[in-house]
């Protein structure tokens, strides 16, 4: 039964290998690319329904018993995240068919894409820290290559910052793993959850916790470790930056939430207090950065940073309602942010620029695009009845209940500033008249992108994701119930430990 847990890793792996073997047959690669992404979505739905019905699943790779071997675990949190990976993975896969240029297709875009997806799904399933490290690295190395593929100057500039900072974060992660192993003699998450409370060295444990904050914080782009993100995310093709924006930072947030609910809960006053400060600074600096930018994807990149702050705020408040909000926010954010990047790509397709000052007139000429943009944009700003409203509402209510009034005030103010910078994009790209000569622009586009058929590939996923946002907004209950169950599971790690190690092994200790 639990063998199914290997599938979210095997499906992208098989797709990657198949597309690598068919290196020259680009057409076949495209078909496999879509098939692989669809298969992953089906598998993730299957796992989510199994976890929903039957509780936490775990699978011991090679039949080594749990604390000793490699373990894959899917609790509801992992299952929800996997489902979102399946959904956005497919949406961006469809989009990339219409938008990735021939050069990148020829030089291995499709295998790399699936390597990235494999790393992300693996990270969500990893049941021990070293395994998590390995999946992080798989994800990183494929993101490095995707980031520089095409070899443009701007890409190389962004990439050197991105690569060096991310390598440093991996080293912090590895050092923390080493120290934790020295302290407890185990790396299995469930086993650590049992052993850590018995370790009589609170100072050392907190030090290790801080190393994890640095390591995952760089990946999640929290203050003050986020500057590599706006430096690099606007340089690759839109399909690549969309999947980065949707998934990569959220793997960092996932790891933070996992580690700080399961392992480091002994000294919450210190660790979660620090996370609270970090979360607020992340929100404020991110949104101020966005307000200062005039490039479509740079504005969106800074927004990723500020929204990460809300998720970390949910973790830092550490109440059931706050964790519910954090989970809800992650799901909402992945869908919305991916969608906004995809819309920026369609605008680029028409006017051949990402600079807001040179964009314009899109509302008049392409009203449908303006509507497709406004759905995720307003959702990101948190206007009812869209998904972002519920996400923010829950976080803010949790803040009020925890009597963190300053945090609530800052969160509300940041919401307003988010709306301001979304209005800026709206005014510049869609509302104001186009200042340049349209004939000249359309000539550029005819030569660079072939047909209207490619446009269908690009618009379909945007409509799909906008539909998901609307659905979450208008009928939030299923996701809220799921997020509530996730929050319950996160706050009671005993269930996780029991499922992985077996009830007997807890009694043995």
């Amino acid at each position: 039964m639990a063998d199914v847990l290997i599938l979210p890793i095997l499906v992208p792996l098989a797709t990657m290998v198949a597309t690598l073997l068919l290196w020259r047959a680009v057409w076949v690669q495209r078909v496999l690319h879509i098939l692989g992404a669809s298969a992953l979505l089906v598998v993730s739905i299957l796992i989510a329904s199994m976890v929903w019905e039957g509780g936490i699943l775990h699978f011991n790779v090679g039949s080594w018993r749990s604390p000793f071997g490699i373990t894959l675990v899917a609790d509801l949190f992992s299952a929800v995240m996997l489902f979102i990976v399946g959904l956005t993975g497919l949406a961006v896969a469809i989009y990339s068919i219409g938008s990735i240029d021939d050069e990148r297709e020829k030089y291995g875009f499709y295998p790399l894409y699936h390597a990235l997806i494999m790393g992300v799904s693996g990270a969500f399933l990893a049941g021990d820290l070293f395994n998590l490290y390995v999946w992080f690295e798989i994800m990183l190395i494929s993101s490095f290559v995707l980031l520089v593929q095409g070899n443009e100057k701007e890409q190389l500039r962004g990439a050197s910052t991105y690569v060096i900072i991310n390598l440093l974060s991996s080293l912090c992660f590895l050092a923390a793993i080493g120290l934790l192993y020295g302290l407890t003699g185990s790396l299995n998450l469930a086993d650590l959850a049992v052993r850590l409370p018995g370790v009589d060295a609170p100072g050392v444990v907190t030090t290790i916790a801080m190393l994890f904050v640095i390591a995952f914080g760089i990946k999640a782009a929290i203050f003050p470790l986020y500057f590599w993100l706006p430096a690099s995310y606007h340089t690759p093709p839109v399909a690549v930056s969309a999947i980065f924006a949707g998934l990569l930072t959220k793997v960092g947030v996932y790891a933070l939430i996992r580690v700080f609910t399961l392992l480091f809960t002994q000294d919450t006053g210190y660790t979660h207090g620090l996370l609270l400060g970090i979360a607020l600074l992340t929100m404020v600096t991110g949104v101020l950065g966005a307000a200062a930018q005039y490039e479509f994807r740079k504005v969106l990149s800074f927004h990723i940073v500020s929204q990460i702050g809300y998720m970390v705020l949910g973790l830092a408040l550490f109440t059931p309602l706050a964790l519910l909000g954090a989970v809800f926010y992650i799901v909402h954010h992945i869908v919305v942010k991916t969608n906004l990047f995809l819309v920026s790509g369609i605008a680029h397709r028409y006017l051949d620029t990402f600079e807001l000052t040179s964009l314009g007139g899109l509302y008049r000429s392409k009203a449908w695009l303006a509507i497709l943009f406004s759905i995720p944009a307003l959702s990101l700003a948190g206007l009812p009845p869209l998904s972002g409203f519920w996400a923010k509402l829950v976080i803010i209510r949790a803040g009020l209940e925890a009597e963190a009034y300053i945090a609530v005030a800052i969160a509300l103010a940041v919401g307003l500033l988010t709306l301001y910078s979304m209005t800026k994009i709206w005014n510049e790209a869609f509302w104001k008249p186009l200042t340049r000569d349209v004939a000249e622009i359309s000539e550029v586009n005819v030569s660079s992108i072939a047909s209207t058929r490619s446009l269908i590939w690009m618009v379909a996923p945007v409509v799909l994701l906008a539909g998901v946002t609307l659905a979450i907004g208008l009928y939030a209950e299923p996701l809220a119930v799921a997020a509530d169950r996730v929050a319950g599971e996160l706050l009671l790690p005993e269930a996780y430990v029991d499922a992985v190690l077996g009830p007997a092994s807890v009694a043995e200790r």
Partner: protein
Amino acid sequence: METTLAILVGILTAAGIYLLLRRSMLRMLFGLILISNAVNILILTAGGVRRGAPPLVEAGNVALGAGAANPLPQALILTAIVIGFGLIAFALVLVYRTYTALGTMDADIAAEKRGEAA
């Protein structure tokens, strides 16, 4: 033995951080290599440095006998070395490509050029 190794880890990390703070991207990379070696030794030290019997399970037993060496840190380090090697090789090529494209190894100058472009 542990003390010596711990001091070595400290020296390597300090040297690595010093190099990371340089402006030349190549030196930053050398800094990363030093720190990655420091981390590998850290894992080895944290796992306990001792002589022991080879970690083989004897016929009929299901667990290691007493006094066996601990193979896990070495397995971890081996994996970390392989991954680190791949990443560093990639980063070296990237720094080289950046050098040929931008004509500089200086991270500050590269960043200034980015400012001009934006």
